[in-house]
């Protein structure tokens, strides 16, 4: 049986705008922070997996090493939409799991443009936006939310409550881009972008970077780093299986359900065993869908879950105590590792005012449209 894999160093930049920094500089800074967290130098790393979306052809990983130490190790640059960072982390996990190395570094980094994501692709002929419906991300996720409303009667107010909760959580997280309370009326009366998503129900468009050092169990014991190590109990990556509405609706549900099933099987646990979840709340509508996709409640009960505060800090299963993509921010390639940083911090008991008490098991989830879903289940150190 192969050795277990642990996270021994993990950190993230406080998300924000860094117009005077380059993508490799941001990635390098996060990499150094994660190395410092582990108490290791770059020369100890045996491989680097770098996730970045917008400069996918620019060898960002190698340029990070130019900033912090060119040691000749294998570098893989990967892009997988909003699952990019988690995919880089998973590649590092696979390398250690396979026994190909004992120490690997994963970095996720992004510098964002301004304005609406999505659409584009005018191609030949005439522009299609507003002709065959809308293709912006707020629209795509509004439609995904209204599908839930069609099935279960979910309301605008219930979707809006997700934003109230996650913005509240971010007031406890110094690394969130925004720390601002947004009462329900403020969320619902904010500028409508694509009904039912108002501006405060869309994720924050910021730059950022996060990084993690992964190690084999053997190496963790050798280095004496067991106390703060976080065990990777499961790693799952899926693409979107066929669905009848694929032709017109990017599918965020079935690939999440498939990944959750694989991850829970691998970990040998169920959703009821989780103490906290960081999930892909790119829009407020999305969070409610994923309560059900991840099995945090039965189908059709997501509205009740948010109404009853079960997913708020202090509730039965806190979701996005970091503030989530809605308030911590969503630098695409960094998001997947930032989620892992958040859950790891709770499992180490180092989350300060937002600490989920006695957290032992946590789950991270990201989804990239097109689609790619990555789920990791993390556990408090057993070493």
């Amino acid at each position, binding site marked *: 049986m192969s050795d277990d894999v642990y996270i021994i160093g993990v950190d993230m930049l406080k998300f924000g705008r860094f117009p005077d920094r380059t993508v490799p500089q941001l990635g390098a800074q996060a990499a150094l922070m994660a190395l410092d967290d582990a108490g290791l130098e770059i020369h100890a790393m045996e491989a680097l997996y770098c996730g970045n979306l917008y400069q996918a052809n620019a060898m960002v990983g190698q340029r990070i090493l130019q900033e912090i130490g060119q040691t000749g190790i294998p570098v893989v640059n990967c892009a997988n939409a909003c699952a990019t960072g988690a995919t880089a982390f998973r590649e590092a996990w696979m390398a250690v799991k396979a026994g190909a190395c004992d120490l690997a570094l994963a970095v996720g980094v992004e510098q964002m443009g301004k304005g*609406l994501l999505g*659409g584009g692709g005018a191609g*030949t*002929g*005439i*522009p*299609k*936006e*507003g*002709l*065959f*419906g*809308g293709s*912006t991300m*707020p*629209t*795509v996720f*509004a*439609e*995904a939310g*209204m*599908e839930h*409303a*069609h099935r279960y009667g979910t309301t*605008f107010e219930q979707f809006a409550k997700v934003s109230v909760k996650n913005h509240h959580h971010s007031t406890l997280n110094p690394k969130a881009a925004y720390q601002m309370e947004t009462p329900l009326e403020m969320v619902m009366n904010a*500028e*409508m*972008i*694509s*009904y*039912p*998503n108002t501006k405060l129900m869309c994720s924050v468009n910021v730059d950022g970077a996060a990084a993690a050092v992964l190690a084999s169990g053997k190496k963790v014991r050798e280095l004496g780093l067991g106390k703060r190590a976080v065990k990777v109990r499961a790693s799952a990556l899926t693409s979107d299986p*066929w669905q*009848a*509405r*694929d*032709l*017109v*609706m990017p599918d965020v549900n079935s690939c999440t359900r498939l990944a959750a099933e694989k991850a829970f099987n691998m970990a040998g646990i169920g959703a009821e065993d989780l103490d906290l979840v960081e999930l892909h709340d790119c829009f407020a509508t999305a969070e409610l869908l994923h309560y059900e996709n991840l099995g945090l409640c039965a189908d059709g009960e997501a509205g009740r879950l948010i109404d009853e505060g079960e997913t708020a800090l202090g509730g039965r299963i806190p979701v996005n105590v970091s503030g989530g993509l809605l308030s911590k921010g969503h630098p695409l390639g960094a998001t997947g590792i930032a989620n892992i940083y958040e859950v790891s911090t709770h499992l180490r008991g180092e989350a300060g005012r937002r600490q989920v008490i006695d957290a032992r098991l946590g789950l991270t989830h990201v989804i990239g449209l097109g689609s790619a879903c990555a789920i990791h289940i993390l556990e408090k150190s057993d070493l």
Partner: protein
Amino acid sequence: MSTATQLLPAAPCLRIPDGEPPFLEGQCCGACGSLYLTSRMACSRCGKRDDFHAQRLASEGTLYSYAIVHRSFPGVETPFISAIVDLADGAVLKGNLRGIPADPNQIRLGMAVKVVIDDALGRRDKEGNAYLAYFFEPLEESAA
């Protein structure tokens, strides 16, 4: 006019036959019956290769989901209703829902709609060609 312009389909599933009304056509998998709006090498669902036949799509369906788009890319007129419609034959289309206010209190999920083929909002390509597009409109419900 120095060059002759023509009327072109704005979507690959739109057919404009000579002297006949335009219509929508999908590609149906001969093995499992799945419907696609564009041709592909093999069926995404069952993997069967090279076994598609053209099938005229239904002209009525029901509203499955929607968004009301208030902010879009520069130059795009808002608000508009971006609608997902389940056609009666199992195909699924996305397009603008018109003929009803862009107001969530007026739009009913599951409502019956019809497919209407019409000018593509006056949009022209670089050569000046006009285009046809499809839209959805509420279907008049017969008096009970």
